[in-house]
């Protein structure tokens, strides 16, 4: 089975400051060599801390920011400069953002916001309006009550439902959810997560679920991608990755989560320091200055993202035979 969405070697650098001759002084390596594939009907979760490049990756996929390089293909068709037009890409892939208020035009009614997409894509006025009503009902908002309202009249949870309806209005195949439930209170977050699961089944959607909340990512995802400082450090099927994290960073990240029940209190692996600045990241493995098991090789050679079997990939010398690490532990025996 070929993947619905394929991404290869996605890269974005930002210059910081300029010399008198216009050359950048420093470079932020926001996203570097990010590759993944998502099969139709699946959910790929992308996790990582702030500054790891997960949101930049989402924006690059949508071409909201043009990538420096990299290949984005839906159903084998490539999009971007010199390929198929970005408009078509955005018809097939839509996005829901974290800030539900900032992502709606305050001067448009809810109906106008949702109907905008279909109308601009060739649907008639009445078709577009009917679509808006149907979708509002589908995301759990009574159309008669909400259709003429403005974003400021709605609560955060209601606004996020409107954003979801708007994303679905042009019948995309892929929806990118960038921290889409992170700003919501827990009781409302549960409603929206349930809604997303229902919509996925009903419209046969494929999700990219970006979040810093590891519990939620585990709950919604089939596959997970872990990012650190602009790079993918580990990916694989959700159960295996959570049960037996292969990268020391993934392990620390999972261990840092507070227990959600008093009976499950645990001791945490505590990393030193904050995630470093993506301007001039550390040489070798970008995680090595904070890594509890780093060796000399980790500061010198950048570990490639390597296939370690069972659909799992990891960028860590400790898991790569012949890397020069003193005690390479293949994944199966790792505890």
């Amino acid at each position: 089975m070929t993947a619905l969405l394929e991404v290869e070697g996605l890269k974005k650098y930002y210059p910081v400051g300029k010399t008198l001759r216009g050359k950048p002084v420093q470079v932020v390596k926001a996203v570097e060599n990010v590759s993944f594939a998502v099969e139709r009907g699946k959910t790929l979760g992308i996790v990582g801390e702030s500054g790891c490049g997960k949101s930049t990756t989402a924006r690059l996929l949508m071409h909201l920011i043009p990538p420096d390089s990299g290949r984005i293909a839906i159903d084998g068709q490539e999009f971007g400069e010199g390929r198929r037009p970005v408009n078509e890409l955005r018809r097939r892939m839509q996005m829901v953002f974290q800030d539900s208020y900032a992502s709606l035009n305050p001067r448009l009614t809810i109906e106008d916001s949702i109907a905008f997409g279909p109308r601009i894509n060739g649907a008639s006025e009445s078709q577009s309006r009917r679509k808006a009503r149907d979708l509002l009902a589908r995301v759990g908002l009574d159309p008669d009550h909400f259709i003429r309202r403005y974003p400021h009249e709605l609560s955060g949870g209601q606004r996020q439902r409107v954003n979801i309806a708007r994303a679905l209005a042009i019948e995309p195949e892929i929806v990118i959810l960038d921290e889409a439930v992170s700003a919501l209170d827990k009781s409302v977050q549960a409603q929206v997560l349930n809604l997303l699961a229902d919509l996925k089944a009903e419209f046969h959607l494929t999700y990219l679920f970006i979040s810093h909340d590891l519990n939620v990512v585990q709950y919604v995802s089939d596959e997970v991608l872990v990012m650190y400082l602009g790079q993918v450090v580990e990916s694989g099927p959700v159960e295996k990755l959570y049960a037996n994290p292969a990268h020391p960073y993934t392990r620390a990240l999972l261990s840092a989560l507070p227990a959600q029940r008093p009976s499950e209190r645990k001791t945490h692996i505590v990393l030193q320091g904050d995630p470093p600045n993506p301007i001039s990241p550390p040489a070798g493995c970008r995680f090595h200055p904070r890594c509890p098991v780093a060796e000399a090789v980790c500061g010198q050679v950048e570990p490639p993202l390597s296939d370690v079997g069972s659909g799992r990939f990891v960028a860590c010398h400790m898991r790569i035979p012949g890397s020069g690490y003193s005690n390479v532990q293949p994944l199966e025996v790792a505890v």
Partner: protein
Amino acid sequence: MTRVAENVVEVRNLNVTFKGEEGSIYAVTDVSFDLAEGETLALLGESGSGKSVTLKSLMRLHPPHKTTITGQVRVAGQEVLSMDAATLADMRGKLVSMVFQEPMLAFDPVFTIGDQIAEAVIRHEGCSYEAARNRALEMMERVRIPSARKRLDAYSHEMSGGMRQRAMIALALSCRPKVLLADEPTTALDATVQIQVLLLLKELQKELGMSILFVTHDVGVAIEVANKTAVMYGGRIIEQGPIDQVLTDPWHPYTQGLLAATVYPGMDRQERLVAIPGSPPRLYRPIRECAFAPRCSYATEACKQPLPPPMVSEGRMVHCIRAKDPAVLAAIR
């Protein structure tokens, strides 16, 4: 607790009302709780539940012209609500101090971190600048800021988020307060940094012996730091008691609903989240009845009547007329 600890904080029937442009907002209603020496109480609730407003009442940090506060707030035997301005200023930072969610906004950007800590020490202890700088250095080392001596002369924007929050804690604890108020201090931090700060707070509490009042919306964070919890909803404390008991065996339907709505580690993907329908109440009128009743699946006609006083038993408190109803308890468990 084996020994009977003295209450450092006693709050009784606290009511806080704000005057807004569109009428009053009844932010906190009839809140009462105690905090003993060395204890940590987590005020747990969603946005708008009144937890931060309650916290700020302990230092009277609300805008005075717009706020009406009634009730009793006693900290180390002193009545906070009737204090004059001078006594209040003496108390802030000395007896009670606070750590905020966003340390970038809490520090003054034009003074160095070291000078801001020293200023607080001089203000409250009247010592020399040198002695105060030494205290600042000691505190920066205590919160484990790397190369603390160098960072005394740093400005807040030169530090990372985690480091700024450590510096904020150093400032808050520089005059050895009896009570530390923490308002979502780790919410803006990344997971790997959050756990560092939570463990640091626990350790400092052991060393310095202060009591902590910790506001959070995150059940996991509350479990990590607190031994008692008070769950807030619609401006009231609806349930309180030892945290293990309250969160293992919740009595109030809202506490139960909040736990059921939270994704927990290892949760089965086939399992549906039990969402609480509707949204939290708006507090534009005094709510005398149960604020949760419109969203509660156990609510009856009686729940629309004014709430009777809370039920207290087994060292716990719950504010719900149906809480001990066998039918409700069976459904919750």
